[in-house]
């Protein structure tokens, strides 16, 4: 039935896809609506979600059971209507405890919802078992603690699971669990002496993986599924892949636990069943709808404080859709469309985090369909497939977390949160002291000689400060990932990855636009420091004009490209745990607001406490030349220096994209073709509806370049007065009805 290949001799899912994928060049006209069963199930989910919201964001917590792959009895939405089954616990939206990250965090999360962790579990984790969090804080240095408490390093995964590892969940469908166990046992036999630290650790890890695969078989049994053998048809393929993913989110509560790139793999089974006349298109869509519905129901137990860094209870079930193969064919299949169609059948949603791997070479029908779905739902993000494929040398990859490349089954990633470059700049200006607390953070940064900032002097100090921050950041990463492996190892996910995979260490940086604009101000205008009696900067007085990042102006964009390159270079010099390859991201998620709070006034004229622009975005209100110039500036940041990804959030109102639906689609396709052909990496596309505009009024920093056009007049929405904004909201909706 399937075309033969190396995938039969070895664990090689890529080869299976390569040999059997059926690229689809057409449009979305074949797609089906949700079935009655799907509608029925989704209604139950929606009710549960609204109950959850009404109940302070958490519907129920199991405070007795420590979650594991096979820890809970079967749970259903409505058993008879489900063609794809499986929940994390025995009840829809009930959250489970995963105390290996840290028992205190679990206790706090329970208490915030009026519950106590059961005495038994408390006793075990307080008195007998050690957690990741315990391990990290046992060895943290005073220096790391200081950097952490002052907000120079923020969101470190030292009290929650690191996530970002993607198991190759396809393997369970293609090979069945037993074959994977056999294979791991063979690997184990090959892991012979000399028995040094590394070798012993690896042997123990593989042993854990083999046990976890046994647990995965048990999870199948709980739901009456025989996962030990390969999937025999489309329904089983979807079910097997989902069970594999479910086992991961039962064992771990990683910040981001991506799905990978399963859609075009599943398409092979689906198209085969359709061709054999076993299933209809409607049933095929139902499979995907029900799969996606389950993915939307994934929950983790979090403390309220977690919301500051990752707002909105995200899980980042990221699925990479489309892209091309190294042989020039594309990987767009009908199931790529079916995944996107769930945004209509089940309505828009942040999860799963649908990520289209874009290339101008993708078929026009698919590109237009993506644009249409973006315009209708604002639920898709895009990444540059051509760029990642040629830079990272793989055509079988998923997106870890938000934006990060990860070759599926061959590589993993150590998540490293991010550091605050704007605050680092202030250390450079204040002799190494924190501008808010006055504490000495870095020794040996020379005091500046004059009140008026001198470019070379500040840049010299900034480089010194970056070097120290890189060193402390690296120390913290090595500690965190050592301890995570030791106390909260991702057994089941790693069982679905090759033994001893390549590891990328995902560092991150926030505040790039502020630093770039600050150096532009220092170079092109006159910036005077205002200092308090202790000599610490409290404000900056700028005399003269300076170009701002986001206007396609090389005089400033050069700083936005050179600074990540320099910082990345510093990180690359440092030794890493497990020889991980350092990679840097320009990404903030929602922490741009928290970073702003923790950072004093900066030389670009930003006041103390003001939120940063997210990711690689220009500061809001400063990209005054329109969206294309702004996109062009961001596209200059070199992916090679920020291999973990460069995030850009693009928000536009439908009317600005063009006068009618067809033109909007065409223009959005042109924007993405243009942006990605300039070697840009990532784009979040928001085509805004009323809710978003209202949100933009409350949080303008999140909508840096929201443009509105009302015949012949273009304006940046966030620069309008409140009354005008209200007027526009009323007008836009009046016109679209």
């Amino acid at each position, binding site marked *: 039935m399937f075309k033969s290949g190396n995938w039969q001799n070895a664990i090689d899912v890529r080869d299976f896809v390569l040999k059997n994928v059926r690229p689809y060049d057409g449009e979305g006209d074949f797609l089906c609506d949700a079935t009655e069963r799907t509608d029925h199930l989704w209604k139950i989910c929606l009710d549960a979600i609204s109950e959850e919201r009404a109940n302070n964001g958490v519907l129920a917590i199991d405070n007795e059971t420590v979650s594991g792959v096979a820890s809970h009895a079967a749970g259903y939405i409505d058993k008879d209507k489900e063609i794809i089954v499986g929940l994390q616990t025995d009840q829809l939206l009930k959250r489970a405890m995963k105390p290996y990250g840290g028992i205190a965090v679990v206790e706090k999360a329970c208490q915030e919802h009026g519950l106590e962790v059961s005495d038994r579990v408390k006793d075990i984790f307080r008195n007998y078992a050690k957690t990741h969090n315990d391990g990290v804080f046992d060895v943290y240095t005073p220096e790391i603690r200081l950097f952490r408490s002052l907000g120079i390093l923020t969101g470190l995964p030292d009290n929650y699971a690191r996530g970002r590892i993607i198991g190759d969940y396809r393997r369970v469908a293609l090979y069945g669990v037993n074959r994977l166990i056999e294979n791991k046992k063979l690997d184990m036999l090959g892991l012979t002496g000399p028995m040094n630290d590394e070798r012993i650790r690896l042997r123990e890890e593989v042993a854990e993986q083999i046990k976890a695969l046994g647990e995965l078989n048990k999870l199948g049994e709980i739901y009456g599924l025989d996962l030990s053998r390969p999937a025999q048809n489309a329904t089983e393929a979807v079910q097997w892949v989902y069970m594999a993913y479910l086992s991961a989110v039962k064992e771990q509560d990683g910040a981001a636990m991506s799905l990978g790139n399963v859609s075009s793999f599943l398409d092979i089974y689906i198209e085969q069943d359709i061709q054999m006349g076993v299933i209809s298109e409607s049933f095929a869509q139902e499979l995907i709808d029900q799969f996606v519905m389950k993915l939307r129901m994934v929950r983790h137990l979090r403390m309220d404080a977690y919301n500051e860094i990752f707002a909105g209870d995200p899980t980042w079930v990221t699925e990479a859709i489309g892209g091309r193969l190294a042989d020039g064919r594309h990987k767009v299949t009908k199931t790529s469309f079916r995944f996107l169609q769930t945004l209509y059948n089940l309505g828009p949603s942040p999860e799963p985090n649908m990520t289209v791997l874009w290339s101008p070479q993708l078929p026009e029908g698919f590109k237009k369909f993506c644009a249409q779905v973006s315009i209708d739902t604002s639920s898709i993000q895009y990444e540059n497939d051509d760029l990642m494929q040629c830079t990272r040398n793989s055509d079988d990859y998923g997106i870890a977390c938000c934006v990060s490349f990860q070759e599926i089954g061959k590589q993993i990633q150590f998540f490293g949160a991010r550091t605050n470059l704007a605050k680092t700049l202030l250390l450079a200006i204040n002799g190494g002291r924190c501008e808010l607390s006055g504490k000495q953070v870095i020794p040996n940064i020379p005091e500046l000689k004059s009140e008026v900032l001198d470019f070379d002097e500040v840049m010299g100090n900034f480089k010194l400060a970056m070097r120290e921050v890189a060193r402390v950041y690296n120390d913290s990463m090595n500690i965190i990932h050592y301890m995570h492996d030791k106390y909260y190892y991702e057994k089941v996910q790693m069982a679905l990855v090759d033994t001893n995979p390549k590891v990328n260490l995902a560092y991150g940086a926030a505040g790039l636009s502020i630093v770039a604009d600050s150096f532009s101000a220092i170079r092109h205008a006159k910036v005077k420091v205002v200092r308090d009696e202790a000599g610490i900067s409290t404000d900056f007085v700028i005399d003269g004009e300076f170009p701002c990042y986001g206007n396609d102006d090389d005089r400033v964009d050069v700083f936005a490209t050179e600074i990540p390159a320099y910082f990345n270079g510093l990180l690359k010099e440092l030794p890493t745990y497990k020889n991980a390859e350092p990679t840097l991201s320009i990404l903030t998620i929602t922490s741009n607001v928290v970073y702003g709070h923790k950072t004093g006034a900066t030389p670009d004229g930003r006041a103390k406490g003001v939120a940063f622009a997210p990711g690689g975005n220009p500061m809001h209100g400063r990209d005054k030349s329109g*969206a294309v110039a702004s996109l062009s500036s961001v596209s200059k940041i070199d992916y090679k220096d920020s291999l973990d990804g460069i995030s850009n959030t693009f928000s536009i109102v439908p009317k*600005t994209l063009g*006068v009618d639906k067809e*033109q909007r689609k065409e223009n959005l396709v*042109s924007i993405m073709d243009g942006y990605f052909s300039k070697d840009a990496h990532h784009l979040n596309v928001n085509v805004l509806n009323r809710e978003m505009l209202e949100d933009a009024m409350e949080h303008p920093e999140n909508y840096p370049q929201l443009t509105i056009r009302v015949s*012949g*007049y273009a304006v940046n929405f966030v620069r309008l007065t409140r009354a005008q904004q209200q007027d*526009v909201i009323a*007008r836009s909706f009046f016109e679209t009805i």
Partner: protein
Amino acid sequence: MLNVHSIESLGTYDGPGIRLVIFLQGCNFKCLYCANPDTIAYEGGKSYAVEELVQMAQRQRPFFGKRGGVTVSGGEPLMQAKELIELFRRLKEEGINTCIDTNGSILTSASKTLLEHTDLVLLDIKHIDGSKHKKLTGVSNERTLAFADYLAGINQSTWIRYVLVPGYSDDPADLHALGRRLTGMNNIEKLEIQPYHKLGVHKYESLGWPYELSGVSANTPEQLNVAKKIFEGYVKEVVVN
């Protein structure tokens, strides 16, 4: 050197596809409803060399798609027709689509040369009735209509733009009259109705100018529909922007 008021890199309403829109400083009309009154004065603005703008267009070119390009608007761009010739000649040399958005009041030999390098003209006709035109813009419409005739004569691809101001330019009789005047001009591909809006009012305040249309409210969908129906009797494609 061109005197530029501002530049919008994502233009989606001033010609086909995605366009780099260069708004020039200075206008010879003073329309009552002008949404960009800060572009009217000849002074102010920022000087750009032609080559600077060509480079900008080249950098932006990947975004243009199949139909986009550069549009020069204003202000009244033909006030700087002579300087624009070189810009458009260079853009055409680079294979970039060119478009001009004009009130059609300046038909000099420089304008005529410029049109030789122009792919599309967006011709704003403010009113068909001479005296009402004068009331709205401060000048008569004779030269604009002659410009339309000239464009028809050289078979220049043209879109007509018409701002529909309630109580000022939406009398059905006037719309019919305009439609009749355009009949037979086969170079006209489209007519765009531009709804009236007040988003530029705050600019009048900062300029210290009175805003004379403060009593006029935005078009209702019905008003726009009526105008669209009327124009559809005369022009092959009518859109409401």
